[in-house]
């Protein structure tokens, strides 16, 4: 039967415990701090003046679509430094049905060697 203890209880993870209640209390506390800091901010700014314009070291602003960083440009460093891995991965994902079946047969063979022969 469902009890209130099981609703709010914490569970054992093998080497520790976790209770979301603690997390909820702490997040409320942090939000209070954030709110209290935010209260010191100044209210009110003048619209339609230079205050609302973005400042790019004096350069003119680009078009909106060019301002947006494209998804494939993100994490460039990560993909560049792991190029050798991605080369292999791209060669794996050919999008070709026969290769999919070939991988299945390869795995079948490996598991067969592990279970059936050894």
């Amino acid at each position, binding site marked *: 039967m469902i009890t209130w203890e099981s609703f709010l209880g914490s569970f054992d993870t093998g080497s520790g415990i976790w209770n979301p209640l603690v997390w909820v209390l702490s997040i409320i506390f942090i939000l209070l701090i954030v709110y209290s800091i935010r209260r010191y901010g100044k209210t009110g700014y003048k619209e339609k003046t230079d205050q609302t314009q973005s400042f790019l070291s004096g350069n003119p602003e680009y078009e909106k679509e060019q301002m947006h960083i494209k998804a494939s440009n993100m994490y460039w460093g990560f993909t560049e430094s792991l190029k050798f891995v991605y080369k292999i991965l791209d060669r794996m994902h050919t*999008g070709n049905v026969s290769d999919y*079946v070939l991988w299945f047969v390869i795995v079948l063979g490996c598991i067969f060697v592990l279970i059936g022969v050894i």
Partner: protein
Amino acid sequence: MIYQIPFIAVAGLILIGLYAVIFKRNLIKIVIGITLIESGVNLFLITLGYRQGSLAPIFTGNPNVDKAMSLPVPQALTLTSIVIGVAVLALMLSLIIHIYRHYGTLDVKKLAKKEADEE
């Protein structure tokens, strides 16, 4: 030896089918390979239904009705499997019609290339 022949045929059918699926480049041939694997598995199932010296599980005017009948489960399984196979075959062929209409080719490698180039 004579009793092993169906099993050799099963292994042959499945291997030929796998060969066709993996190494043939035409989609229709891949579908043929799948049906070959399927008939291999069906043949295996129906072979399992045979028990030495038993009767076929049909009520007929057979005088030897005292002999044991073999359990007709494998036959039922094979029939179900064949029915499923027909559905799969029809689906695959109709998809091939659509693929040919879109890309104008049935070659696996060309299709993969055209798919990657799209957009």
